[in-house]
């Protein structure tokens, strides 16, 4: 008998065992079985969402600090009309759009160089720089920026040597946007890199030999061909920054609240769970609408789901 590799024989044993437990004619339902954990998880979340929806319809009795027994749309009226919440919503949405645009602009050259560079050392450095922030965590990084940008921070110290400053570099809107962009950049690069890898170098060479200079090649070939990556990265960055909590809280110092901060305040400061739940529901609705709009505009096909195109 030929001696097959051990792994083959092990697989044979496993396969016979599997056949006993899970006959082949049940193979049709295997994909659904594999989906089951995900469905279960999402199902639990949806159950939670019902709970939240229930809460959003009850108002807080400020004398007893109990939620009302009866349902009303009071919370929604407050959330949509009070200037405080409108302010927070505008800040979050405008912020997430700016952050998305800036992050994509910065991420593409990074991803492009990382994928295309001929220097293995440079690629390694770029990759390490990309993954390092993931080990540090969002809160620690935000505090790091406080140390660097604070009134007595590194930047202002350096400026004072030049006789200028100190400038107020934190606890304002630009500081929050800056922190978010810095936080989102690795996510965007990670999602753009495969899209750039999928563009054959030959295609760029072809564009060049057909008369395009590198700017034209970038605009007419690289950008459109990287579109699936853009859509994916854009969606991730937008939803993550729209719902972010730590960066606005720490770098905004309470003055630059995003929606998540407002929800936190309602749940844990004013203890108005009804209003908190309402804000949470509105955020879910707005986020989903945003994603739906993007899908409607560019089509889910651009995420390269469904049948792969050759």
């Amino acid at each position, binding site marked *: 008998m030929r001696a097959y590799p051990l792994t083959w024989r092990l697989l044979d044993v496993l396969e016979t065992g599997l056949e006993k437990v899970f006959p082949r004619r049940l193979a049709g339902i295997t994909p659904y079985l594999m989906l089951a954990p995900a469905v279960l998880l999402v199902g639990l979340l949806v159950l939670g969402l019902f709970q939240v929806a229930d809460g959003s319809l009850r108002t807080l009795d400020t004398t007893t600090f109990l939620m009302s027994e009866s349902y009303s749309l009071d919370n929604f009226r407050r959330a949509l009309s009070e200037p405080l919440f409108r302010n927070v919503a505008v800040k979050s949405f405008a912020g997430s759009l700016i952050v998305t645009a800036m992050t994509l602009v910065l991420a593409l050259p990074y991803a492009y160089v990382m994928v295309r560079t001929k220097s293995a050392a440079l690629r390694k450095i770029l990759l390490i720089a990309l993954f390092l922030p993931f080990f540090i965590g969002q809160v620690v990084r935000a505090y790091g920026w406080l140390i660097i940008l604070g009134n007595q921070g590194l930047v202002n110290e350096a400026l004072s040597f030049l006789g200028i400053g100190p400038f107020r570099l934190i606890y304002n809107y630009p500081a929050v946007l800056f922190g978010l962009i810095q936080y989102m950049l690795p996510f965007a690069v990670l999602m753009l890199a495969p899209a750039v890898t999928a563009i054959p170098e030959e295609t760029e060479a072809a*564009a*060049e*030999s*057909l008369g395009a200079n590198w700017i*034209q090649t970038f605009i*007419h070939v690289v950008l459109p*061909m990287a579109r699936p990556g853009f859509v994916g990265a854009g969606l991730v960055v937008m939803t993550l920054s729209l719902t972010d909590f730590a960066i606005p809280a720490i770098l905004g110092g309470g003055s630059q609240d995003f929606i998540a901060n407002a929800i936190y305040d309602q749940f844990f400061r004013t203890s108005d769970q009804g209003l908190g739940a309402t804000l949470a529901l509105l955020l879910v609705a707005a986020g989903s609408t945003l994603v739906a709009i993007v899908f409607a505009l560019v089509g889910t096909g651009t995420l390269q789901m469904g049948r792969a195109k050759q």
Partner: protein
Amino acid sequence: MAVAETGLDRLAVEGPVGSTAVSVRNVNMVFGDYRAVDDASFDLQEGKFLTILGPSGSGKTTLLRMIAGFQAPTSGEIAINGIPVGHVPPNKRSIGMVFQKLALFPHMTAAQNVAFPLKMRRFDARTIPARVAKYLDLVKLGGFANRRIHELSGGQQQRIAIARALVFEPDLLLLDEPLAALDRKLREEMQLEFRRIQRELGVTTINVTHDQREALVVSDEIIVMDKGRIQQNAKPSATYRQPSNSFVAGFIGVTNFLSGSVTDVTDSEVAFIAGTQPLCGRWVATDVRPSAGQSVKGAVRAEQIRVAATPDRLDDLQTTVAGSVMDVIFEGERVVYEVRLASLQDATIRVFDHDPSQHAEFEAGARVFVGWNARDVLVFAE
């Protein structure tokens, strides 16, 4: 019509002498300590179809990429239409290139692909649609203008790539094995199509392939490369009939090599002994002459050997050798016999038999005689 008889065999080109479209002078390409292209020199006349033929890794693509301008040679000079292009970037050279993987733009329609070079090269926008239509017609895809690339078949994609490379009327067309991925029938069809289009437009073309049939069918000239060196630069018939060395002889066609040592040298012929079998052949190299006792190999093509049951059937041939059939391969239009020759130290040779009425006359194990003429044996130094 003037015929160029330069005497230099490798430059002899029939037909009117055009101006030199491409001139490659002592070009080298070194990657680290690996010499991918080794001192390549050749000239190509305007309007000619040149094929660079060679095995995988012989440096064909590297040579082509240097002509296109994607890589700068380590040393040497390339001139297009007499102008050195050392510092001209690819987008400023007038070269249309068809890549091995075609490199069509998947996010554009067929027509947009073809229009791309015209837009990049700032052709008058009003003339672009007519020009695109003309070239789509040229490649017989007039009705496919608005198809996306992935909605086209492999052969149709080839045609779009050709149209895109030609639409701006480049001085030079480069083809880097664009047919390698196609099945044989479609490939042969496209080879003739390339030839037709090239003749119709008269564009100077350099084609790269490792398919010897393609090289013989489509080319005016063939450069055979091996290990980065140009082995021969000649017309297809010369490449086939007068290979300049044993590599070329072995690479093109089915060639049998018979190793032996020289016994006698006359003006045009070399006598040598292989095993116990005395043989005779033509000495090919003109610069050196063989000496007695030197190790040589004689190359004889499978179609120049005949096989028969008795030696008297081979009376008209100068050399006859007894052998036994080892294997019989039926290939449709011909039968290939593998014959072992005892007197040549059991060397196995391949013989084509084209006689249609007697397909597979012999069976494996049959005792046969094979024969050939001395002029069909080309003798090379071992």
